[in-house]
């Protein structure tokens, strides 16, 4: 980049807004608890944000094209159940349950994408349908009961590799890869173009359906990954897991400055949004805030952070 520019400054401001909120909250937590600013707690936060992080990065792609995916939570449960069904000890090698979980996610994502692009149905409706269909399939496949008896080699995926939790490594790879993808690949640029102005993107030779299909498919893949990680973490495939996960994920993306109408946003912002939500959840538990107040405080902080951020971006 050559000269400093208005555009860059504005993006920077955006991020500074969230970073400031994040720092204030982290500072307050460090001051009021002995445990927040410890290495083990920070690892802890990292482990807990990984699943929401992977989902949030996935749905960033869909939101960038101007779409939305409400089926995240249900598809997480379905992928987790499918993964667990293939993960009984001694049945298959590690690749099979992971592959099946990912495949389930991709299939759901592509199905969403096809209905949006070919069917011309609004993403809100398509993914709302997928939300209940995937939940139903998870209940059918599991017989309504948690699928237990998973091989330790798979559940170990929720453990650590050296000093780092494996879920965090997954999140890191996903976030890093997505950042490179969006900033360095032609297809990444096309995603922004489609979300920014679909007609103009088409007139510039971009294949709009292909780009959208890709976004939903990739989001599905990452949702499948989140499902596998969750199953490993709770050592079962839970058909009723992942309730309302899509809301936390979309909240994180929007906090990170991605526009719900598409075309504007970044993976870095999403990562910051995920961090903010994770720190709030962790901090409220550390402070022993009552369950009733937790819900209220979390909502207020999320809306407040976005409000502050947008105000700063405008000025």
């Amino acid at each position, binding site marked *: 980049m050559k000269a400093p520019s208005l555009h860059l400054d504005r993006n920077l401001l955006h991020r500074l807004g969230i970073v400031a909120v994040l720092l204030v909250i982290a500072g307050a937590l460090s001051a009021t608890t002995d445990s927040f600013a410890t290495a083990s707690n920070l690892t802890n936060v990292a482990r807990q944000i990984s699943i929401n992080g992977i989902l949030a990065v996935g749905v960033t792609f869909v939101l960038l094209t101007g779409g939305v995916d409400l089926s995240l939570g249900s598809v997480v449960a379905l992928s987790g159940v499918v993964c667990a069904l293939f993960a009984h000890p001694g049945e298959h090698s590690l690749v099979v349950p992971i592959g099946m979980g990912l495949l389930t996610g991709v299939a759901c994502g592509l199905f969403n994408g096809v209905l949006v692009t070919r069917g011309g149905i609004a993403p809100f409706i398509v993914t709302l349908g997928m939300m209940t269909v995937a939940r139903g399939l998870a209940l059918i496949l599991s017989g309504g009961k948690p699928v237990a008896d998973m091989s330790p080699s798979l559940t170990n995926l929720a453990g650590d590799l050296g000093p780092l939790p494996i879920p965090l490594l997954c999140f890191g790879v996903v976030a890093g890869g997505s950042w490179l993808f969006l900033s360095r*690949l032609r297809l990444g640029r096309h995603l922004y173009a489609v979300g920014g102005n679909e007609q103009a993107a088409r007139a510039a030779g971009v294949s709009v359906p292909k780009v959208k299909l890709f976004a939903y498919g990739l989001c599905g893949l990452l949702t499948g990954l989140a499902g596998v990680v969750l199953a490993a973490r709770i050592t079962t495939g839970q058909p009723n897991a992942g309730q309302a996960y899509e809301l936390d994920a979309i909240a994180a993306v929007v906090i990170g400055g991605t526009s719900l109408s598409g075309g504007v946003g970044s993976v870095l912002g999403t990562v910051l949004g995920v961090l903010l939500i994770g720190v709030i959840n962790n901090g409220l538990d550390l402070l022993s805030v009552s369950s009733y107040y937790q819900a209220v405080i979390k909502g207020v902080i999320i809306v407040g952070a976005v409000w502050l951020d947008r105000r700063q971006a405008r000025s």
Partner: protein
Amino acid sequence: MLRAFELTKVFGGLPVLQRVSLEFRPGEVHALMGENGAGKSTLMKMLAGLYQPDGGIIEWRGQQVRFGSPQDALAQGIAMVHQELMPIPDLNVAENLLLGMEPVNALGWVDRAALHQQAQAWLRSLDTELDTTLPMRRLSVAQMQVVEIAKALARQADVILMDEPTAALSDHEVAALFKAIGTLRARGVAVVYTTHKMDEVFRLADRISVLRDGQLVCTQAASEFSPDSLITHMVGRELAQVFPPVVTQPGETILEVQGLTRAHAYRDISFTLRRGEVLGLAGLMGAGRTEVVSALFGLAPADSGQIRLRGQPTRITCPADALAAGFGMVTEDRKGSGIIPAMSVEHNLTLAALEQFSPGSVLDRSAEAAATRSATADFAIKASSPQQAIRELSGGNQQKVLLARALLHRPDILILDEPTRGIDIGAKAEIYALIGRLSAQGTAVLLVSSELPEILALTHRILVLRQGELSAELNPRQTNQEEILRHAMPQ
């Protein structure tokens, strides 16, 4: 009754209406005539409260007024029937007609019987019979227009402004509309009306005002005009010295179009285009010019017909096909299908030629930056940096970015649809010069423009479209604006 004194309106630094003074009388049909962009719609919208004047005053029944909104104007008795009608499609005719003034019974509930009775009465006062229980969406455009007019009457409008009411109507629908307008005149309502159709004006108007380049040329009784004198008044400007001379000799044929047809848009369009040739496509709004070039670029494919490119039959089903075949295009609708507002100048500029900068799909960002630097210099694009969002640029600079985008992959055929609409004279001159350079380099240019001086000065040949059909092929050196308009006006 309604007077405008020295009304002025400025958009983005460009005056679109300058010190226009007019007067409308009860019981007259007053036609506003002028080329596209002369300021007719702007004038109407100010009178109807949609726009606020930047200068001048509006006087209504002898008192100076300011309309903050269309509701203000309506409350005073001034109603507008829009070019794009805005009914609520799922409410029925009566509900639309009496929206916000429904008769209610003692309980405060809508009295359905009275609602339909009143609606019927208003429609009958326009000599129209319509089933008022039909949902609005089932009506033809002409029927909707009559409902809109009745709606204006129901609100006691004394002035009704109509912006090109007949643009989308068939002949017998036009007749029905004229009957309604006749009734209005008899009731003492002032009807202000714009159209491109010459015959209508002389059938309908009592007085005619001609606008040109945002200024009032004259106001006279319709009987004092002849069709030719009216056209001369509408066009009558000197060719500015901003046009480069046409010097290039066209080379071999590159594009042949044969029998291109699309239902309800254009029929049997055939022409050829040669390397280095600038071919003008003239016609009124809605004549099918944009639709024809959209078909060539794959934006809205034709139903039938053949396109031969460099002698080979070519199928173009989407813009990506067209780009690969060597077409480039700057669309008419800069905001709708041109710029990506939130993206930077650089990313907008390279979007259509991204393959060049991403062999193996990884973007070479330094090559992108270099191309942007040279394009901003070549096209004199004024932006604070290549990273500035394009929506922050002026219209002219946005248009130059889009031109640069279309040229980045060196098209053999460049389609320009209204490339100079809404931009200032300086940027226009730069675009004219560019067209000359491209032609000299052997690029074939297909230029769609409503600005006749532009077409006359820049092109090698002119095709005129009238109601979806080719009506003439003219040599720009041997014709004039009057002749073009004569071929463009519906017979």
